[in-house]
């Protein structure tokens, strides 16, 4: 009996010793030296793996940061959801200045609510915007408008969007939006845009993507931009943030000063803003007052 125990201990011990040695050498031979900073940086990132930075997940971003730091430049890298706080922390670890991008937020550019753009047909296919878009113009009949099937809501990893059943349009919860841009990519109609948060959270944008002539656009949606050009004229001369292309006005967020003048003149109320405009003052009675005011602006 003693012999059996002894032999088994010796033989198993020998197997263990040989295996340990083999494993030791393999581990040495194929050792991958990983920069410890990658782990540190990855730890600092939000860890949502949203892909907003353009890299495959947070670890991919961290690797890019460290690689960039070794190469001497991390310009162009940044974590949109993390914002400036994360950037500063990463900058400290890497000993470099991380350029914090301007804070952005996703903005919906369609005002085709059930009320303004009633449904004309019914889509019976799978509830996906991408499929509805490929099949036809959608239930409302607008070739550029929101399809209302919520591809953007489904893709949002931060719970920053929901579908408003009353309007049939998605709603972006600003406080939760981290501007990763997943919804922008998911929308087949390119309705959602990332726009700068703006000073004091003041933003003005054209709430429409219709590229149709005014009369045609109005047929399907009462809230469409009809390209009348009133907003372009109303925009202060020094600012000139509004351009008119393909029957659609666009407000350049870099130029816009969020004065809100264009909102009042839009006949279809197609310009939206994050702030309420004060009630318009009664029109001046005397002639020429308006002229004086314009001159003042010029000066």
């Amino acid at each position, binding site marked *: 009996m003693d012999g059996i125990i002894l032999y088994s201990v010796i033989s198993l011990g020998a197997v263990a010793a040989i295996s340990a040695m083999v494993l030791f050498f393999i581990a040495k031979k194929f050792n991958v030296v990983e920069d410890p900073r990658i782990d540190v940086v990855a730890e600092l990132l939000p860890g949502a793996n949203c892909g907003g930075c353009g890299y495959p997940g947070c670890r991919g971003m961290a690797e890019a940061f460290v690689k960039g730091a070794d190469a001497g430049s991390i310009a162009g890298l940044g974590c949109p959801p993390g914002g400036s706080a994360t950037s500063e922390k990463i900058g400290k670890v890497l000993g470099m200045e991380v350029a914090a991008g301007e804070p952005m937020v996703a903005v919906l550019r369609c005002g085709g609510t059930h009320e303004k753009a009633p449904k004309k047909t019914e889509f019976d296919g799978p509830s996906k915007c*991408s*499929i509805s878009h490929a099949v036809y113009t959608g239930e409302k009949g607008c*070739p550029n408008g929101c399809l209302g099937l919520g591809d953007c809501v489904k893709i949002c990893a931060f719970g920053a969007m929901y579908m408003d059943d009353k309007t049939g349009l998605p709603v972006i919860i600003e406080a939760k939006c981290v501007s990763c841009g997943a919804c922008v990519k998911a929308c087949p109609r390119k309705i959602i845009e990332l726009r700068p948060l703006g000073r004091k959270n003041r933003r003005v944008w054209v709430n429409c993507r219709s590229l149709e002539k005014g009369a045609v656009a109005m047929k399907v949606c009462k809230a469409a931009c009809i390209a009348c050009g009133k907003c372009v004229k109303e925009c202060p001369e020094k600012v000139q943030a509004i351009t008119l292309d393909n029957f659609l006005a666009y407000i350049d967020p870099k130029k816009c000063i969020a004065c809100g003048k264009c909102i009042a003149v839009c006949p279809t109320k197609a310009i939206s803003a994050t702030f309420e405009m004060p009630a318009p003052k009664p029109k001046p009675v005397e002639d020429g007052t308006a002229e004086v005011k314009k001159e003042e602006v010029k000066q």
Partner: protein
Amino acid sequence: MKLKTFKIGGVHPPENKMAANSPIEALSLPKRVSIPMNQHIGAPANPVVKKGDDVKVGTLIGKGESFISANIHSSVSGKVFAVETVMDTTGYKVKAVIIDVEGDVWEDSIIHSGALIKDIKLESAEIVERIKSCGIVGLGGACFPTHVKYMVPEGKKLDTLVINAVECEPYLTADHRIMLERTEEIMVGIEIMKKALKINRAIVGIEANKPDAIAKMEKVAANFPGTEIQPLKVQYPQGAEKQLIKSVVNREVPSGKLPLDVGCVVNNVGTALAIYEAVQKNKPLIERVVTVTGKKLSKPANYLVRIGTPVDMLVEAVGGIPEGTEKIVNGGPMMGKAVSTTEVSVTKGTSGIIFFDKSEARRKRIANCIRCGKCVSVCAMGLEPYLMEKLVEKSRWEEIEKLAVTDCIECGSCSYTCPSSRPLLDLIRLGKANVNRIRWERSKK
């Protein structure tokens, strides 16, 4: 006798060919036509008329300038009202020429009579040139420019012309009627096609649910040596090019290859008629037969319609949209597309207008996949629809590319047969589009 058919997959939906006994009627001229410039596969034609121009029936109004494109001719005489964008059946905008109809004056070069002309005066190259200038496209539904098929690259060996008279789509009867009413013209058309391809053998595949057409075609074909009629077992999608070749000549077209690679050219029977009219009478493709049908319709009919006629007129001709209609389909019930408005016009590819009531229009509630494998067994291309659907849902495009998603002919047999009513084809189409996009991006690099 055992009838020929293709071996892999296939379904047999209820035929519902209600309009089979309605003779073709010529629809009265509309007041205004709107003729889209992209009625075919390939680049849209460029309009060559402008507002205020006078046109006759057969005047060239759109020129197809790229390799895969087709000419468009005026289907009416009158004045060009506008050249602008209009809605097509999907609701998206397409460029179109809108013409106000005045009288019915034909171009002088067109022989405008019903008399049969048997002698083929033109030579092979001239025939192809004529097919091109007359804007002939495949009338089976896909509208591929026909002249491209006839430009056979050097070194390719051709031996058989396969004529597609299968009409495997339920409801549609347009091809059935022309085979009964214009048999001789079709046969001469086939002779012209054989001459253009410099071959002697043509086989017409007809499904066995059209015995009268088979009998009539066989009788007339006896006078045309080299043209055989091949009755086929009723099975969908037999009218698809690759399936038809398998059925008729028992050859398999490999993945990514063309019928030319197995020595065949496939054309629709309607195209044969259009080629006859183009070559013998110099008549461009300006009209086609459209089946207007539906279960609730008191009088399903086949109309000879000028291209560009509003679908509204067809609806009026059959007595308005029947009560309880929930869906109007442009094309066959399996592959056709629902229209979002009847204000669209009839194009070269409009084979039918079908009215569906609630029971046919609605999709059933989607249930979970039960892995029964029915979609795999009915897929005529031997694909795995259930797997591709799942992968599309997860956006795994590279994997569905490996599963040969681009081989899918979009016949819809998988969706039709699925006991869980899963939207297989919708998702596979989405996958196809994405795979094509990825391939395009790759080719740019």
